[in-house]
């Protein structure tokens, strides 16, 4: 309370000093200043302080000009100072020609890309190995476990003849709810070969789920939680964005690259995906196997994509399927009478919260998806 008042006061003082108040406000403030010596003192003190800060800024700028001028003149031999030697000289030259180098490098880069994309587009067999699907293999020590399981089974077999064969989940990914009743989105490549699917929330509760729609082309799968102890939510905090997003928009992801929900942040780096794929877009976020199928959110907490793959040849190039294809997949699903009532929202209710609060609200709706 007190803190807030202080900030409001400071804001008023600063606007007064900078002359940003309208005449009425100004008059009111000046009266206040006359009657309240404390405020008057604050104005005087803050004016002094702002002056000091301003002059400090200018002083800093001037000093850096001086340093630049000195190195330049010394380098050109116009003053008799020692020329830079060794490492310092390399650093200087690098700073000086950084722009030129950057331009040259990007031209080289563009040329290389153009040529490689040409080569790629005319080459008979496109190599899919360059894209690494981000599903996670959960076969940690699979062989070992199998043997142990076998031993165990043998032992149990003697005790109890009608032993269920346990399901071993080998594939892991991420999924997120698109309605409160348990409809979820993940990548098709995460669940395509699985008979049994189980989803885990961040609290560790697990539910059975089944595939209701598999779109291999777009790599989108809709799955539905089918478990008695799943409690439906009345609504979701986030919405799904219908339109494309803009380059440089900050984004964040939630996913399960390990058995714990992991947050990552970055930005939208290109509107298209691998080799100009218009289904997807490119984002720069840290992503690991297990992130597949995870939601990509923008700063207002809207889902703008489904994280799906990363380029093996390039660092930091991660691809996400654009969120509008969630609507497309759903529209197709609605042709089935069973699902014609599924509704998803494009409105996010957390757009005004800061990121920590957003993530807190979202994380209950993001699940680890495991399949056998």
């Amino acid at each position, binding site marked *: 309370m007190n803190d807030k008042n202080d*900030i409001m006061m400071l804001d008023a003082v600063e606007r007064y000093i900078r002359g940003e108040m309208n005449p009425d406000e100004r008059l009111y403030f000046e009266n206040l200043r006359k009657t309240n010596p404390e405020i008057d003192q604050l104005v005087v003190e*803050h004016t002094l302080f702002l002056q000091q800060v301003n002059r400090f800024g*200018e002083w800093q700028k001037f*000093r850096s000009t001086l340093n630049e001028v000195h190195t330049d003149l010394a380098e050109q031999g*116009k003053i008799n*100072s020692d020329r830079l030697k060794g490492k310092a000289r390399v650093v200087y030259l690098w700073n000086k020609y950084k722009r030129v180098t950057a331009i040259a490098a990007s031209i080289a880069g563009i040329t290389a890309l153009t040529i490689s994309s040409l080569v790629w587009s005319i080459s008979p067999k496109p190599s899919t190995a360059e894209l690494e699907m981000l599903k996670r293999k959960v076969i940690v020590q699979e062989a070992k476990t199998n043997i142990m399981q076998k031993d165990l089974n043998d032992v149990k077999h003697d005790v109890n003849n009608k032993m269920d064969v346990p399901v071993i989940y080998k594939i892991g990914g991420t999924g997120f709810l698109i309605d409160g009743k348990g409809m979820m989105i993940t990548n098709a490549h995460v669940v395509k070969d699985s008979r049994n699917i189980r989803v885990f929330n961040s609290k560790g509760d697990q539910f059975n789920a089944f595939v209701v729609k598999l779109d291999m082309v777009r790599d989108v799968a809709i799955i539905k939680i089918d478990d008695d102890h799943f409690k439906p939510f009345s609504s979701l905090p986030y919405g799904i964005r219908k339109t494309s997003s803009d380059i440089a928009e*900050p984004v964040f992801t939630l996913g399960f690259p390990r058995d714990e929900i992991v947050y990552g942040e970055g930005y939208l780096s290109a509107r298209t995906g691998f080799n100009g794929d218009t289904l997807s877009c490119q984002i720069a976020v840290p992503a690991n196997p297990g992130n597949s199928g995870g939601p990509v959110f923008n700063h207002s907490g809207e889902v703008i994509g489904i994280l799906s793959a990363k380029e093996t040849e390039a660092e930091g190039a991660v691809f996400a399927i654009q969120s509008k294809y969630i609507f497309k997949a759903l529209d197709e699903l609605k042709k089935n009478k069973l699902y014609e009532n599924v509704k998803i929202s494009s409105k996010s209710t957390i757009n*005004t919260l800061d990121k920590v609060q957003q993530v807190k609200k979202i994380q209950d709706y993001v699940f680890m998806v495991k399949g056998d």
Partner: protein
Amino acid sequence: MKQENNERALLQGLARNDRKAVETIYKQNYNMVQSLVINNNGSSDDAKDVFQEAMIVLYEKARSGTFELNCQVKTYVYSVCRRLWLKRLQQTNRFTEVGDIEAVVSVEDDVDEHTKRNVEFEMMDKAIGGLGEPCKSLLEAYYLQKKNMQEIALSFGYTNAENAKNQKYKCLVRLKKIFFTHYKNGNSDE
């Protein structure tokens, strides 16, 4: 008369932190100052330090608006450098008689004022440095680089300008506290 006009223009440029003006003054005076320092127990690094200090004194003078040049820029720069170098020699007990190579004017007051200002700037530098992130970058972006709140909110990842503004004020309160503590301590020490 022509030279006088030239020098006035040069000083006006300097006051605006105009790169051309800085370069010109630098070129015309640096070698002279370097000879002075090197001939009197100094290195070329010392020369650079002293010369740049003198440039700041000249810059502050030119900016104050009340500065009437009653000698050549060259004489003034030389005098300030000489004074600064003597002071430094005294501090390190390397005092020697300085053999003069140029005419000298009295700059004692200017140099003292400059030293005082330097102390204040260093205090500000320390206070800002002691803030930690993101406060440091936030305040620098607003008060030093003069970015507007909208840009800042975007580049620092605040959801809106209002949030960024609140955070900025919180940081500012802290900075003022640190600065004024130093300021009072610094002044009572003397």
